[in-house]
C-alpha cells in the first residue's frame, strides 16, 4: 500500500511537468500533502502516538491546506497571471522528468544495501531533482516557491524512510518545512507583491557585478 501511494506521488511529478496553470500546481501540492499523510500513517507505526499525531497534522493541516490556501491568496492578492510560463516546452519537461525518474531507479538498483527501502529512495530523490528542475525552468518567483515546496516534500519522504528509528529527524524535517515556508511565503512573498507589481524573476536581477 505504501508503495502504491509513493508511485502515485511519482506520477504527480510527471503531471507537474506538463501543468500549465498555477492553480494546477497548487492542486498537485494539495494532493501530494494527502499522499504524504497516507504514507506517514502507514509507515510510522513504531513511534509514540503524540508524535505521530503531530506529524499527521503537519502533513494535512500544513502541507495540504495552509500552504496551498496561502499560495492561492498570494496569487489572487497580487494579481499574478494564471500561466506558469516555463522556459522550455512542456513536452521537453515531461521527457526530462521521466529521465530523472529512470536515472534514480538505475542509481538505486546499483546500491547494495539491505537497510535501504528502494521505493522511498527513488521517489524522494526524483522529487528532489524535479523540484530543482522546476525552480530552474520557470519564470515566476511563485513557481520557484512551489519548486521549493516540492523539494521539501521529497526531503520529507526521505526522512520517513528512517523515521521509525529516529523520529527526531522527522520532527526536524517538519521544523524545516514550517520554518522555511513561513519565512519564504509569509513574511516575504507579501513584501515582494507589495513592492513589485509583477512578480517576475527578471525584476530581481539588479544585484550583480
Amino acid at each position, binding site marked *: 500500500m505504501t508503495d502504491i501511494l509513493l508511485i502515485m506521488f511519482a506520477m504527480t511529478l510527471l503531471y507537474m511537468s506538463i501543468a500549465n496553470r498555477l492553480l494546477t500546481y497548487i492542486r498537485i501540492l494539495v494532493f501530494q500533502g494527502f499522499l504524504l499523510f497516507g504514507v506517514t500513517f502507514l509507515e510510522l507505526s513504531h513511534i509514540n502516538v503524540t508524535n505521530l499525531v503531530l506529524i499527521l497534522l503537519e502533513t494535512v493541516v500544513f502541507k495540504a491546506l495552509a500552504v496551498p490556501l496561502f499560495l492561492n491568496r498570494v496569487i489572487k492578492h497580487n494579481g499574478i497571471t494564471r500561466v506558469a510560463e516555463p522556459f522550455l516546452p512542456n513536452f521537453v519537461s515531461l521527457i526530462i522528468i521521466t529521465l530523472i525518474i529512470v536515472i534514480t531507479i538505475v542509481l538505486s538498483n546499483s*546500491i547494495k*544495501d539491505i*537497510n*535501504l527501502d528502494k521505493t522511498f529512495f527513488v521517489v524522494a530523490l526524483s522529487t*528532489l531533482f524535479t523540484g530543482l528542475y522546476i525552480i530552474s525552468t520557470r519564470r515566476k*518567483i511563485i513557481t*520557484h516557491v512551489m519548486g*521549493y515546496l516540492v*523539494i*521539501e516534500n521529497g*526531503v520529507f519522504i*526521505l*526522512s520517513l*524512510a*528512517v523515521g521509525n*528509528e*529516529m523520529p*527526531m*529527524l522527522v520532527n*526536524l*524535517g517538519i*521544523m*524545516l518545512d514550517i*520554518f*522555511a515556508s513561513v*519565512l*519564504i511565503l509569509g*513574511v*516575504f512573498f507579501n*513584501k*515582494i507583491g507589495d*513592492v*513589485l507589481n509583477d512578480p517576475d524573476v527578471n525584476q*530581481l536581477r*539588479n*544585484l550583480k*557585478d
Partner: protein
Amino acid sequence: MISLFLPGAILISVLLYFNKSKIVNYTLVVFYALFLLTFAVYQSFHLNSIELGYFKSDGLGILLLLTLSAATIPALFHGYRYIATHDESKKSRGLFFAAMTMLITAIGAAYLSNHIAVTWIFVEITTLCASVLIYHHRTTAALEGVWKYVFICAISITFVFIGILFLSLSLKQAGVEDLSFDALEKNYAQLNPFWLKFAFLFIFTGFTAKLGLVPMYTAGIDAKDKAPAPAGALFSSVLMNLGFVGIYRFYAIVARTEILPWANTIILIAAFLSIFVATVYMTRIKNIKRMFAYSSIEHMGLVMLGLAAGGIGVYAAILHIVLHSFVKPSLFFQFNQVYRVYQSKSIYDVGNYFKYNKAGAIALLLGFISCTAMPPSGLFVSEFMIFQSLFESHHLIILFVVLLLLTMIIWGFGSNIFKLLFTPPISIDETKIPKISAWESASQYILLAIAVYLAYNPPAQFVHLTKDAVNLLPQ
C-alpha cells in the same frame, strides 16, 4: 552557563524589540555585550564541559566564541553610530538591535553545539535574523538581496538536512541512534562509507552558503552588500566561521574513515574554485562593499585549502579564520564612514579619502595591508603556513596557481583602495561632507592590532585552545 545565557539573551532581544525608549535600548545593548563577554570567559574556564546534553565547550568552540565576543563589541558600537546617523524610527532601531543580538546569540550557541541537529537548528535561526538585517532599509534592492539570501539559504539548509538523513542511513548498521559529534567519533569504524560520502557531499554543500565557498557563495555577497555595514561585518566574519565550524566538526569524523582522500579532493576543488571566482570579481569590481565580500570568499578558500592539505595547514586554517574575523570587520566598520563622506559605494564616486578623514584613511590602508596578508599583517603568518602545508603535501600546481591568483587579487584590491585613498574624485560637493571624529576609527586600529599581536606573539592560552581545536582531527 549556557542554560542561563540562552534565555537571558533571548529575553534581552525581545525587550529590545518591544522597548521604545532610547536610554533603555542602549543600556540593554551594553548589558548584552557584557553578558556575552562574561559568558565566553566563563566557558573558557570550563573547557570540555558538557551542558544540557547538547553543548560542549571544546577548544574550537571557545576560541571562536571569544573571537565572537571581541567582534561583537565594536559591531554594536558601530551599529549605534549607524542608527544615530541615519534618523531611524524607534521601531526600526529596536528591530535592528533585536536582530543583531539574536544573530550573535545563535552564532555563539551553534559554535558550542555538540550535536549536528542542534547546529543545524541554530544555523536556521541565523538565516532568519540575517534576513531581518538585510531588509533593514526596505528598498527594492534590499528586497532582492534578502529574497536571494533567504531562498539560497533555505535550499542549503535543506541540503544539510538531507546530509543528516544520509548520515543516519550510514549509522543504521552500527545500531547507533545518537547523532552527537562525540558519539559519531566513537563509532566511526561502523559508519557505512557509501552513505557517508553522500552525507559529506550534502552537508558540505549546504554549509558553503554560510562559509562562502563555491557553489553557494552567491547569496552571501548580496547579503553583505545590502545589510548595514555593522551587520555586514558580522556576516563576513563570525557568520562565516559558523559555516567553518559545521564543516570542520563533520570533517573531523570523516577524517577518521577511509573516505578522507575523497573528501579532501572535494574540499580542494571547492576551495580552489572559490579563490578563482574571487579573483575574477576582485580584478574588475567597482562596488567597494562587494569587493570586501569577495575578499572574504578568497580567505575562506585559503582556509579550506589549509584544511585539505593537512599537517600544519589545519593549525594555520584555524589561526587564519580567527585572525580574519578581526581584520575583515574593521574594513566594514571603516566603510560605514566612507559611505557617510561620499554617499556612494561605487569606486567611481570616491577618492582622496586622506583629505576628508585622516584617521579613517590610515585605518583603511592598514586594513588593506592586513587583508592582503602583507607583512606585518597577522594573516601573513597563517597564509605562509597554509602555503607551507600545500608544499609539504605536494600540491605544487595548486600552490603555484593560487599564488598567481593572490597576486592578481592584491592588484585588484590595491588599485581600488589607492583610488579611494589618493586619487581626487571627479565631482564632489565638499560643503556637504560631514566631520567625522577620529575616535570612530579607534576600534578598527584595536582590531587590526589584535590580529598582529595574536599572530606574532600568541598568548599561551590562545595556542592551547588552537591546538585543542586541531586535536579534533586524528593526529
